[in-house]
């Protein structure tokens, strides 16, 4: 983000280094193993999780396909299979497995996947920082005050306490519904994003639309996190 030209050139260097087998120096045509000497090749640390798992940067992912790909790659890189190999190969196997695990863990969960994609794409969006949701904060603080009051009074049952509990339970249901609504909207945006990503020629309107989708997703993701936290607190106390 700070120095785009430099970042780009270092990436090219890495790709160039990557395209040569560390062992036999032949050009690596195979994806994960050298075609000539069959040695395992390191996944580039610069690689994003989508690339690592051989996926396009789309948000709708076939869960079974992803799982199969993960298992297949895990079998290729698992440190257990490298115990008798050289130090270099053992190190590569460890590094690749760690990257692969992180990639799979992030991408299999739709929320984490979206958060990751928004972060990845953040560089291409001009002004992605959203306004903090002041009204939501007020709402959360007021609910937390109610929760505090409830916890403080929960030793001595009273009519007021019962009423407060009922109010908090109903607030909790409303917020759970809001969280679900945010998630449905988010999944709608997944489809919009994927449709835009598939456009072969990214015209200006497509770019602008993508930017607005990323912005809305980012806002939904952060608001959802705030709502989820207060829902968890409510459920833990009055649920």
């Amino acid at each position, binding site marked *: 983000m700070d120095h785009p030209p430099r970042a780009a050139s270092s990436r090219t260097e890495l790709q160039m280094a990557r395209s040569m087998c560390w062992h036999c120096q032949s050009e690596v045509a195979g994806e994960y193993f050298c075609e000539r000497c069959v040695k395992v090749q390191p996944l580039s640390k610069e690689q994003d999780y989508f690339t690592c798992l051989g996926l396009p940067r789309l948000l709708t992912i076939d869960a079974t396909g992803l799982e199969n790909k993960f298992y297949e790659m895990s079998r290729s890189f698992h440190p257990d299979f490298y115990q008798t190999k050289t130090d270099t190969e053992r190190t590569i196997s460890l590094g690749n497995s760690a990257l692969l695990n992180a990639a799979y863990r992030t991408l299999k969960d739709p929320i984490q996947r979206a958060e990751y994609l928004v972060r990845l794409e953040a560089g291409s969006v001009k002004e992605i920082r*959203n306004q*903090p*949701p*002041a009204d939501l*904060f*007020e709402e*959360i*603080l007021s609910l*937390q005050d109610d929760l505090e009051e409830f916890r403080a009074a929960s030793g001595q049952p009273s009519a007021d306490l019962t009423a407060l509990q009922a109010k908090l339970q109903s607030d909790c249901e409303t917020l759970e519904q809001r969280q679900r609504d945010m998630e449905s909207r988010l999944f709608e945006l997944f489809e919009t994003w994927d449709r835009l990503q598939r456009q072969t020629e990214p015209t200006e309107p497509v770019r602008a639309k993508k930017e607005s989708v990323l912005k809305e997703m*980012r806002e939904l*993701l*952060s608001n959802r*996190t*705030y709502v*989820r*936290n*207060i829902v968890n*607190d409510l459920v833990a106390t009055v649920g």
Partner: protein
Amino acid sequence: MAYSEKVVDHFNNPRNMGSFKKEEDGVGTGIVGAPECGDVMKLQIKVQNDTIVDAKFKTFGCGSAIASSSLATEWLKGKTVEEAGKIKNTDIVQELNLPPVKIHCSVLAEDAIKAALADYKKKEDGKETVK
């Protein structure tokens, strides 16, 4: 990862927890949130003659966020409005020994201070135009 002793101390004995009435004269309120973890922090200052005479906070989040805001209120008391604006998140990181993954908690506290100061100034400016 273990919290530092200072974080645990602020977490167990938070200083200046609570709130002032927002409308009260000389009170500035800052409410900020960390979108990554969903923590919400409210920090308030009470100013008399350009000096912060009292500060309060309410933070809903992790131990580091609570400790950062608790420490911030301690530091704010007795400072002038201008001095308060100079508190940096890095000071908080240093004092509390926050690990890299918790640096955003200190950023949140700095943002809250800035927001409270801005709110106070806005209120003061509003008063002048009314006069």
